[in-house]
């Protein structure tokens, strides 16, 4: 029964990873760009939430309504007035610029908040859990995170397929020059995509901050998990990303159960095996 429990915990953890991965995948899908500061920006959101909660003393879950739109704005401005300039020419440029950003954010947070672990206190929901008999139980809050990530994927898919703006996202992704000929301002679309992606990881960052503790330095690991979920799931497949996230979550919790030091390693190992056996991922969408 212990193992059933471990797998359930892994699935729930995977929900969080899927949320990080969805943002990464959206940005890559729309502008073929990988944001190396992706994880750090989600940690930044958690710290912003910490500030908000400190100032107005509300539940961090409520603070989300301020933090997420704010980070959306940060993403829009960042892309529109900085990263868009790096999209011309060498594909290394956005990577170098976002790597620099990652260093700035990590050290900025370190300077502002020190290296101490922080947590966001959402009250009793954090520890509430449902026992299913035996040793099997799951926390309501991790379940909520999984539900949120499924909801985000559903909403994002609906946005991309059902709305005119969503279709513009996909058209820009297919052929940005042809999209411009339709009256689509690709720079605005890129900025919106980054805004939405960062809003999603901001949500992930706050939820993670409630679920566990965080420090300024853990951003890069979030980026790596998001990446592993995206690659395992298959580029361009949103449900694949969810499955990838869950696989990673299960691998890590199973690994932790075997030996605490090897938890993350087992996650990487599963990723490497998928990369070796199915480099295009499990649910790769065939383009063209």
């Amino acid at each position: 029964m212990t193992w059933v429990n471990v797998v359930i915990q892994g699935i729930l953890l995977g929900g969080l990873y899927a949320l990080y991965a969805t943002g990464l995948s959206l940005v890559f899908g729309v502008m073929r760009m990988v944001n190396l500061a992706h994880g750090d920006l989600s940690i930044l959101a958690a710290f912003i939430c910490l500030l908000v909660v400190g100032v107005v003393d509300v539940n961090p879950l409520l603070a989300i309504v301020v933090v997420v739109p704010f980070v959306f704005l940060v993403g829009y401005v960042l892309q529109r007035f900085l990263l868009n300039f790096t999209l011309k020419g060498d594909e290394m440029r956005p990577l170098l610029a976002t790597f620099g950003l990652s260093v700035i954010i990590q050290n900025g947070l370190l300077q502002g908040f020190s290296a101490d672990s922080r947590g966001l206190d959402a009250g009793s929901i954090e520890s509430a859990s449902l026992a299913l008999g035996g040793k099997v139980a799951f926390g309501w809050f991790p379940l909520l995170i999984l539900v949120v990530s499924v909801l985000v994927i559903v909403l994002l898919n609906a946005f991309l397929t059902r709305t005119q703006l969503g279709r513009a996202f996909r058209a820009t992704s297919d052929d940005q020059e042809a999209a411009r000929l339709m009256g689509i301002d690709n720079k605005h679309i890129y900025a919106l995509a980054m805004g939405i992606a960062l809003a999603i990881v901001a949500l992930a960052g706050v939820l993670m901050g409630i679920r566990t503790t965080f420090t300024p330095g853990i951003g890069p690991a979030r980026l790596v998990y998001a990446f592993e979920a995206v690659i395992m799931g298959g580029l361009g497949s949103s449900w694949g990303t969810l499955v990838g996230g869950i696989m990673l979550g299960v691998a890590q919790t199973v690994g932790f159960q075997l030996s605490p030091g090897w938890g993350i390693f087992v996650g990487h190992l599963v990723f490497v095996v998928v990369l070796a056996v199915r480099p295009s991922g499990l649910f790769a969408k065939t383009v063209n």
Partner: protein
Amino acid sequence: MSLLELEDISTRYGDFQALFSVSLSVNAGESFGVIGANGAGKSTLLKTIAGLLVSPTGTVRFDGEAVEHLPAHKRVVRGISLVPEGRRVFPSLTVHENLQVGAYGKRGGPWDLDAVYEVFPLLVKLKNKQASFLSGGEQQALAIGRALMSNPRLLLIDEVSLGLAPVVIRHLYEALADVVRSGMTVILVEQDIGQIMEVADRVCCLLEGRKVIEGERGAVSREQITEAYFGMRT
């Protein structure tokens, strides 16, 4: 009254100069043909009008206003629409979605989904098919239909016939004739002289980036164009 006036256009790609001080004017309601060999600068000319390329010199006036500094997406809103070379439909979108995206600029007018499906009935049954699975002719029809969805006042079409079978080309040109009859101003670019001489009111010929001949359909003979096309005149 001229809808489009180009003056002294000399567009370049980096070190390569594609156009040399080209000037021309196109009247409202007119269909204008641009003929030239591969590499004569025809596509460059259309891209400069559409705003994908910018000439370091000269002016582009549309409906009396200078638009040479406007980016492509803003020129669409003004009413300039380009059907690009190679069709460039959005491969992962369905036919219907491609048309919907065509209306992104939100210009009102007679062209909507129904009107486009009426001019290109073959698209109706392909509505929910992903554009990447369409044949070349179907993609071309879709590309033209998609451009019409923005209700342009000036429609630029880059090589309708490229890589298509003669029968398909004829069908497309028949549909285009309908569009022209509706009063749309059209600039057509072709390598092939045949079709364009039937649709265009006026033609010009480009040779190595320079305009070498221009005139009414009746006033310019095929021989003159052929000579200009290959640069045989001295």
